[in-house]
């Protein structure tokens, strides 16, 4: 039997629409937390990589000094000649370059410094990417306050317009209601508009994230490769500097023969340097491991951002993993910084 339903008042007609609009709004809403975590993690990747490269550069500089001091005069002059900086060609004003610009003779610490800057620039591109994603997902972009203001303004405008024309009640087929009921109209109108904006940005985020997935794979691969290069450099510098300092701690002079003139204080300092080097080396290995894991998880974490938009509440394992590794990197460097502060007092 067909039952004809008639709404008792326009409010009864509008309320389900409002409920539907609000429900659609909840579905379209973008959760900003995963984007914030992704962005914070890649920022930590940048500083972690930079700090790691900085330590290796410092050791490489120290090695250059130590080796130079131990060389015979002729060999030492060859080295210093290669290290000397000259003004760069006219097309790059304001810069200098080594006297011998062939990569074979350029001291390694110069190359490490250049590599460090390259890593930083590369990671900065990733940081900016994370920030741009975070900004598009930010609640500030489609803010509740802005739409509340619009709703209040629209409601007030409708009332004023009705008042100006002397309208006190609005007649609809389902009944009549006073102009006070415009609030419901305004809410539905503004919420619908908000939903459109929310849906638009959600679709854009999903689309752009999908489009960049391949680039993120390339970033991950390069990040892992960069960390591997840092690891090899670290091993190289540690082994070389350790060998030099251990001889000092044992009482050998730069001519690498035992000397009774090497005082106890010098040997003690060298021994302390060995202990500090070991701590820094262990710490650096941990950081490089954490960085390696974070770069490995990066593509999956990036993909999870889109999956979570399509299926809210889906797991964010990779994002949690890179976030945890970022915290580990930060903690490791904080410990090292405190240790260095303690040893310098």
């Amino acid at each position: 039997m067909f039952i004809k339903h008639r709404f008792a008042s326009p409010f009864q007609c509008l309320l389900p629409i409002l409920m539907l609009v609000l429900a659609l709004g909840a579905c379209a809403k973008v959760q900003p937390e995963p984007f914030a975590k992704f962005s914070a993690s890649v920022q930590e990747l940048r500083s972690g990589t930079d700090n790691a490269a900085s330590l290796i550069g410092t050791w490489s500089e120290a090695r250059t000094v130590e080796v130079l001091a131990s060389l015979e005069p002729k060999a030492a002059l060859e080295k210093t000649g290669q290290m000397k900086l000259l003004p760069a060609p006219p097309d790059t004003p304001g810069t200098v370059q080594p006297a011998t610009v062939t990569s074979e003779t350029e001291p390694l610490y110069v190359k490490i410094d250049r590599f460090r800057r390259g890593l930083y620039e590369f990671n900065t591109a990733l940081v900016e990417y994370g920030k741009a994603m975070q900004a598009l997902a930010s609640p500030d972009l489609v803010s509740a306050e802005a739409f509340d203001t619009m709703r209040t303004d629209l409601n007030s405008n409708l009332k004023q317009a009705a008042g100006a024309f002397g309208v006190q009640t609005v007649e609809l087929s389902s009944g009549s209601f006073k102009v006070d009921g415009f609030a419901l109209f305004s809410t539905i109108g503004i919420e619908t508009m908000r939903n459109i904006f929310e849906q638009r940005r959600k679709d854009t985020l999903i689309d752009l994230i999908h489009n960049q997935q391949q680039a993120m794979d390339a970033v991950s691969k390069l990040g892992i490769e960069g960390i591997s290069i840092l690891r090899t450099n670290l091993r190289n510098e540690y082994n070389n500097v350790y060998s030099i300092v251990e001889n000092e701690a044992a009482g050998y002079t730069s001519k690498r023969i035992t000397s009774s003139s090497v005082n106890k204080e010098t040997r003690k300092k060298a021994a302390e340097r060995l202990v500090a080097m070991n701590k820094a080396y262990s710490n650096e290995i941990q950081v490089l491991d954490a960085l390696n894991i974070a770069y490995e998880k990066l593509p999956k974490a990036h993909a999870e951002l889109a999956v979570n938009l399509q299926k809210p509440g889906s797991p964010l394992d990779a994002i949690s993993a890179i976030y945890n590794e970022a915290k580990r990197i930060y903690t490791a460097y904080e410990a090292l910084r405190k240790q260095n502060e303690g040893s310098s007092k």
Partner: protein
Amino acid sequence: MPREPNEKDNVINQLMDQSDKNKKLERDLRIEGKYEEADRIWAADQVLSVEIDILLGHRMDDWKKSANEVKPKIEAATKKFEVAAADIKKGIDLAKNVIKVLGYIDDLIGIAKSLLI
């Protein structure tokens, strides 16, 4: 994902293994009091060290070249996100302005009505 060293990495690692052995030998010779032999090993290791440095330098330069190819892609993607956010902000600002303008029109209607009375 296990790390997969490339060919240059393998060569560098082998040379570094050798350098480690040299350093250990140098240390042992000094402990035994054979200083001249130890110095010769040290000198030979310095030559090897220069070769390792050269290969490491190449490895870093290669990486930079690859990074320079990927970086513009990421920067272009960043721009797309920024443009999308700016478009949405522009849309919302436009909506706000339309509602404000409607308010002004209502005010004008009110004024016009009051003049007619």
